[in-house]
């Protein structure tokens, strides 16, 4: 695997949604393109892995120890919104309808992909709820079977801790990703959140 062309194709095809054909097309595009196109990409990728890591409190992407949301004292410190991916935070922030904190699980319980609770940042969430002054946990996992399983699991885990546990209202496209929901629908789902029993 020393041939740089083969190495690049191989590297691209490891990305989600990219098959061998697309990987080859991208590789030959970069080969033909002016030098800075490929080098900018290489620099950006390097910086991405070296400078960005996860917030030690909520596991959102962060440049420092804490992410910009956890570092902002103006945010409501008593509410945590639990999401599957950092991209979901971007979607919720865009609505402007939420002023609390987040917690990123980095996935959802998915037996078909062999992802169990221990593979997610669930223990860290329980710890936060115990240590911080949390009054409400909003479970904003995706409205599909995996997201539902994850929400129920967390709800049962948090039940004895005496916090208010809520789930986004229905109305989001079933089976869809939070990431793709439009702003108004998402804001309404947040507004109409209901307690889980």
């Amino acid at each position, binding site marked *: 695997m020393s041939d740089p062309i083969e190495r690049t194709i191989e590297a691209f095809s490891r990305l989600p949604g990219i098959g061998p054909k697309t990987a080859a097309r991208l590789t030959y595009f970069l080969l033909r393109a002016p030098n800075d196109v490929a080098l900018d990409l290489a620099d950006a990728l390097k910086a991405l892995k070296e400078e960005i890591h996860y917030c030690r409190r909520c596991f959102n992407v962060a440049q420092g120890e804490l992410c910009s949301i956890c570092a902002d004292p103006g945010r409501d410190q008593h509410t945590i919104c639990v999401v599957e991916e950092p991209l979901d935070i971007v979607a919720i922030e865009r609505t402007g309808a939420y002023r609390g904190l987040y917690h990123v699980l980095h996935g959802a319980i998915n037996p078909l992909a062999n992802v169990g609770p221990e593979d997610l940042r669930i223990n860290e969430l329980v710890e936060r709820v115990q240590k911080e002054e949390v009054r409400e946990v909003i479970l904003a996992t995706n409205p599909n*079977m995996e997201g539902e399983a994850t929400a*129920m699991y967390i709800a049962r885990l948090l039940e004895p801790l005496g916090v208010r546990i809520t789930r986004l209202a229905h109305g989001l496209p079933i089976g869809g990703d939070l990431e793709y929901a439009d702003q108004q629908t998402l804001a309404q789902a947040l507004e109409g959140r209901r307690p889980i029993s």
Partner: protein
Amino acid sequence: MYLQHISLKNFRNYLRLELDLPQGVTVVQGRNAQGKTNLLEAIAYLATGKSLRALTERELVHWLAFEQEPIPYAEVAGDVLRDGIVTRLRIVLTQQGGRGSGSGLRKVVMINGVRQRAIDLLGILPIVLFLPEDISLVSGPPSARRKYLNLLLCQIDREYCSHLDAYTKVVTRRNAQLRSFQGKRPDPTLLAFWNDALVEHGTYIIHRRQEIIARLDELVREQHRILTAGHGRLRVEYRPSLTLIPPSTQVPKAQLALALAKEPVAYTPPPILPPHKIRKRFQETLNTLQREEIEAGATLVGPHRDEMAFLLDGRDVRTFGSRGQQRTVALAVKLAEVQLIEEALGTSPLLLLDDVMSELDEERRARVLHVVRQVPQAILTTTDWDVFDADFLAHAYCLQVNEGILTEKTPDTP
């Protein structure tokens, strides 16, 4: 309700078809592999959003479309008239990424020009489709009978369809979860979630199957009685994988025999259990099976393992019936289905019969044609005009199909 117009583009062996359909009877004649069944399949596809024959939707797209269209696609559209209102149904399959991209097909369902889910098609154009291979409904494996029940129930109850869809997803995920517990202590919270999901969706399915089979039992028996002039008494029995009535409460065998001896004709179908009782039984059964299920890494009980039996004078037609008896039962089931859909939806289904007549004797043909004349619309295919009498054809709209091209035809012109 009837289908006024059907339009096909690149569907199976039809490159282009625009066809106005009348109320009443349409007969399509053609040699084998000219497109008779494909036409019925297209209508059934529009009615249910699913292909009843193809394994992949790719098979539905004409091969020329992959070579000649800039973006390969297939389309089925139809206008359904009911109570003076026309509903336009349309399904488009498009090759993603254009020609030669090798990736999957994108399926878009439109109702009156608005994008909808495939499930929203159900019930707008109810159909009863009878293909020669439908004898497998009686002679085939249990999965054939589950498939039959599912299609019937989906057409009359969309909620059933969404529960079925969810249930199927739960079973695959639950099986994987059970396997993940092998050799470990199962996580009780996770297990509870998958059990609850299985029971919630499964209960709805079992409850509806109980009801529909109880009604089928009556309707099929009557159809069968007419078809056979009273030879043998047919019963349709639900054999759920979940034991609905625990053995302790069942009537002891001796007592049952005594009751039967007293009154040999009396038969009381099992009571229909209300959902809350099914739910309770289901939960209890899952609890007792827990260890076994983890060991097997599979969901061992539930609607995905249900069975339905056809009993002729108490003997299972699947194992003991002759080919002829099996065919008669299948026909009785299809004719009963017409009635069942009428009762449930308040409109008669479009009856689609694919080359069914040639397999039947005179009397049964007459019985089928009696039902065909009663429904507002029926489409029959045949290889041979001679299976119909001249009077029947004189009142039918006759078409001939040749390599995916339909032409109007009067039977006396050669």
